């Protein structure tokens, strides 16, 4: 049983460019959440997708957008990249948005460097 998989593992982009990160949830999970983790800090919640809709959003600008596909996989898109967007981007999958009783499992992350 594959866990949460993310691609790519590393990425280097130039300021102003756009980037797309991908996540496949753990088998049996239907909810995907995205987090940004700056160096030396804890992960910060970006948004959560369930039933192909954004259900919750953290304090991130509209440059950050996402999508969930019918197979529950998800993409995170960031437009007009800034140097400050350099971070580890983590995807977490769980079962059933709301309820609040299930574990969330994380992928290994995508390390994004903006130069």
């Amino acid at each position, binding site marked *: 049983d594959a866990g949460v998989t993310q691609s790519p593992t590393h990425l280097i982009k130039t300021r102003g460019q756009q980037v797309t990160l991908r996540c496949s949830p753990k088998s049996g999970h239907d909810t995907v959440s995205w987090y940004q983790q700056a160096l030396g800090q804890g992960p910060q919640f970006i948004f959560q997708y369930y039933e192909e809709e954004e259900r919750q959003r953290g304090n991130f600008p509209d440059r950050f957008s996402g999508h969930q596909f019918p197979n529950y996989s998800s993409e995170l898109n960031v437009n007009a990249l800034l140097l400050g967007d350099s971070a580890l981007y983590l995807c977490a999958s769980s079962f059933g948005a709301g309820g*609040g009783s299930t574990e969330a499992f994380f*992928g290994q992350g995508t390390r994004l460097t903006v130069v």
Partner: protein
Amino acid sequence: SQQGEEDPQALSIQEGENATMNCSYKTSINNLQWYRQNSGRGLVHLILIRSNEREKHSGRLRVTLDTSKKSSSLLITASRAADTASYFCAPHNAGNMLTFGGGTRLMVKP
């Protein structure tokens, strides 16, 4: 804010000793989850404790939860060098959103 705050920020112990990390949060929760992270890689889920539970064990891990004090603790017994990592607590609200603090950086010296 629902954010968990870990204490201490850093902890250094000898192999074989016990390590205790604390977590505080501010609002009501459905559950609280603890995670480990090695060198900036993905978070590994350690344990989930529900709001109606007071203590939970998993191998060398023991987690307590005191909802009246809005606090939790993670105890790692008989620590090993491989336990060296950052540890995060994540209060979990009804919206299925985890919020993380800055973590506790644990160093276990061989």
